[in-house]
């Protein structure tokens, strides 16, 4: 009992010391709050798949009321922005080459004649395929406008088409990609902050020689581990909750799930990230090494989290790798909670992998404290 109490006292001392050193350093204070806010706005506003004001040009070889009617639908759409009317194929080539327009609409001379005669006709769309993603989405928008044009013309002449796909998106009714991105930001951004805080914590002490001082003192490795883990955990929770609240209040992302579920997910996620950070830090002998290690982990971890690109699109072997990535679970769970309205039992399958990751990483870090020494 006495041993247990003195152990608790030592952990408390260590936690207080960690808080004190973190908060006394103006750079750390800034690191905890500055970059998360900047990233919150950068991700929220800049990371969007929705195309807006796509630059396009037209080559209208028909110059008929019908062609003008079709093209005016593009001009009137907020999705598209007309940058020029061209009169030659050479001009089209030039414009696309210098990225003056994402796409060019080419109306052939026979357009209105064929249309009025009831014959099928074509609208040629020339796309800049260098950014395949943008080209694909832009083509989708063009098809939507053309389909609508067809539908409206058809109603006047023949019976309505028998098969029609009616889209109705659940959870994100307008398919706004901002909801998709911002709902997971609480996990994503805090992962960076927590990794930097913990990644440096052991290696800094090793570099300044204070770690030896800790090892010689009566601290046991688990005590050091807990003492080192708690402060970044607290900062991480703070950031995670702040960003999640801001997602609702600033970007208007719905919060449909349970707060308890979010708290549990974030807490377990922080523990696993702290584990990874401490592991990297104990493995490094200098701060430079641990900083490098942190970034080597971070880049693939973000890509493999499904934050921006769906995990199902990845090849099978890479999908397996994502199971070891704590970010995968927090991203999934956050979206479930925010958009789907998940409660604690619903996210349970995403919780235990984080517990496993945290346990493995923390034990490895604790073992390294004493063994990563010459």
């Amino acid at each position: 009992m006495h041993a247990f109490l003195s152990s608790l006292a030592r952990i408390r001392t260590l936690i207080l010391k960690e808080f004190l050193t973190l908060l006394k350093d103006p750079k750390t204070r800034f690191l905890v709050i500055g970059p998360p806010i900047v990233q919150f706005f950068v991700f929220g506003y800049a990371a969007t798949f929705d195309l807006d004001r796509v630059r396009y040009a037209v080559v209208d070889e028909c110059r008929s009321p019908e062609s003008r009617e079709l093209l005016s639908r593009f001009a009137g759409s907020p999705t598209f922005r007309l940058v020029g009317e061209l009169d030659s194929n050479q001009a089209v080539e030039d414009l696309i080459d210098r990225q003056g327009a994402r796409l060019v609409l080419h109306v052939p001379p026979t357009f209105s004649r064929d249309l009025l005669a009831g014959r099928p006709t074509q609208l040629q769309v020339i796309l800049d395929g260098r950014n395949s993603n943008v080209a694909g989405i832009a083509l989708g928008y063009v098809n939507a406008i053309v389909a609508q044009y067809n539908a409206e013309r058809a109603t006047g002449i023949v019976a309505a088409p028998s098969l029609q796909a009616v889209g109705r998106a659940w959870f994100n009714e307008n398919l706004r990609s901002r909801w998709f991105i911002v709902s997971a930001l609480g996990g994503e951004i805090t992962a960076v902050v927590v990794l930097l805080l913990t990644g440096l914590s052991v290696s800094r002490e090793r570099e300044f020689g204070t770690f030896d001082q800790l090892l010689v003192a009566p601290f046991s490795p688990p005590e050091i581990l807990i003492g080192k883990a708690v402060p970044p955990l607290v900062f991480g929770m703070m950031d995670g909750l702040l960003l999640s609240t801001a997602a609702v209040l600033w970007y208007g992302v719905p919060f449909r799930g349970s707060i308890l579920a979010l708290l549990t997910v974030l807490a377990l996620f922080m523990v696993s990230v702290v584990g990874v950070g401490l592991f990297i830090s104990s493995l490094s002998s200098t701060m430079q090494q641990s900083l490098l290690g942190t970034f080597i982990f971070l880049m693939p971890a973000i890509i493999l989290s499904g934050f921006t690109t769906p995990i199902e699109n990845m090849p099978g072997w890479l999908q397996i790798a994502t199971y070891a990535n704590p970010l995968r679970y927090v991203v999934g769970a956050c979206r479930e909670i925010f958009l789907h309205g998940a409660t604690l039992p619903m996210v349970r399958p995403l919780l235990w992998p984080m517990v496993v990751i945290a346990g493995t990483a923390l034990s490895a870090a604790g073992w390294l404290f004493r063994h990563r020494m010459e």
Partner: protein
Amino acid sequence: MNPADPILAIQDLHKSFAGKAKAPVAALRGVSFAVQPREVVGLVGPDGAGKTTLMRLAAGLLVPDQGSATVLGLDSVRDTLLIQGRVSYMPQKFGLYQDLTCQENLDLYADLQSVELAARPARYTRLLEMTGLAPFSDRLAGHLSGGMKQKLGLACALVKSPELLLLDEPTVGVDPVSRRELWRIVGEMVASEGLGVLAATAYLDEAEKCQRVVVLHEGLKLAEGEPAMFREQVRGHSFAVVPTSGTRPRSIQARLVGQPGVVDATIRGGRVRVVTEGASPQVMEGTFPAGMAAEIRPVEPTFEDAFMKLQADTQDATAARTAPSPAASHSPLPASDSVVHTRGLVKRFGSFTAVSDIGFDVHQGEIFGLLGPNGAGKSTTFRMLCGLSKATAGEVRVAGRDLRRTGSYARQRLGYMAQQFSLYGQLSVTENLRFFGRAYGLSGKRLRTRIEWALAEFELAAHRDDSAGLLPGGYKQRLAMAASLLHEPDILFLDEPTSGVDPLARRDFWRRINAFAESGVTVVVTTHFMEEAEYCDRMLIMSQGRELATGTPQEIRDLARTAVHPDPTIEDAFIALAEGTAKPSAPEAKP
């Protein structure tokens, strides 16, 4: 420039540094002196005296607030580039590229100094030969020992044959053999190339070898002259107290330190060397029991005696030093007399054997020294003792246990002070003390009492709220020691505690260690200052991972006693042992 002109003329130099939200610190307050061609001038003074500032001003790296530094007839501010082409400056930590080989470092500095390609091979050969680095020219600078690094630094500084060489504490942390070599190289260069040298140093025996010495103190020039002149000033003030057999010189020394009228008391060659205020040994009467001393006889003064007297005359405040109040009680250790016990200790890093077959015992209340140059394996041995490193083979027991396997309880009785300052720089003095106090299980009233004790004992009270990282060097050392003693340990491990500390602070430091040992604390200490070995009860001298000799200071000195050298110091003995001219002690001679 007239050949008779000084190559360096310092005129009424002032320089202060603005502190953060504090009054500016005056580093230099009107210093003037000159260095002539072919002259070696020593610059001595305690930490914070302004030595480094003066060096940097002379090298044109700083702009003086007032006054001027004239180098080779050129003004250090207006003609900085011209000066820097003709002067070599070797800062305390020379900028060697650790990932380049010795040869590549030399090439780099030769390129930077635009040394002609044709002149290089001859210069390289000479420098490498002088420094003894020729066999290591392909080795990475980062893999050299401390002494070799300094020699390579000096070689790089000399690669262009400068007219003035500025050396800022070139021998800090360097073993005696390498120190001698460094000074020999400097001497040879002065003789063959006629350069002038200004060398700041913390070793007073080195200052003695200079032609002239300038003593700085808190930014002022205290004195200037030839070493002989300094010695004459204290003639008749220096005495040696010879202890009776069976009396530890330390016991006499501890009683003399801080007595009114006693300027300095140190242990040298088994005797207590005393410098008195007046030219008479009378002040010593009654300070120690008469039975302890066999004889008190006047001795030849040294520069060090004069330096200590100068310091004492200037700062009366610190003269009234009280003996420390050591920890009141110590729980007796387990019956086994040997507190630290090692046998056949081996440590290998890959194919390199850092420590080979080291074995010794340390008894309770003993001060045990691990001596040897940098790279001898002292720190590696030390880290194995503290449980910070795993022995490849052999046995380590501290208080009967292996520290790598024991729990918190055993470690609670140890104090550890690392080689480099290793407290939390961002935390204040009290915050550091509180943390380490609590780490060792102190709390409440007892913690507060101990912190107050530490602040008073180590004279840290004025700095209690300052960040530890911003403390001056000597204070950092004191804080580190205070932190390791807060919990009144039974065993104290000190790794190079006096490295980079000025002579005054070093005396203070040993005064405290002695007091703790007298009160029953067992002390294991590593040092490369050979004269400090005199404070140890017993010592182990190491070189290249092996034991050279073990024994009391007396026994070690006896090893080097010859007809030519009837009265060797520990340093003489070390050099004799290292060079193989003295034979190590036979194992059966061990106590």
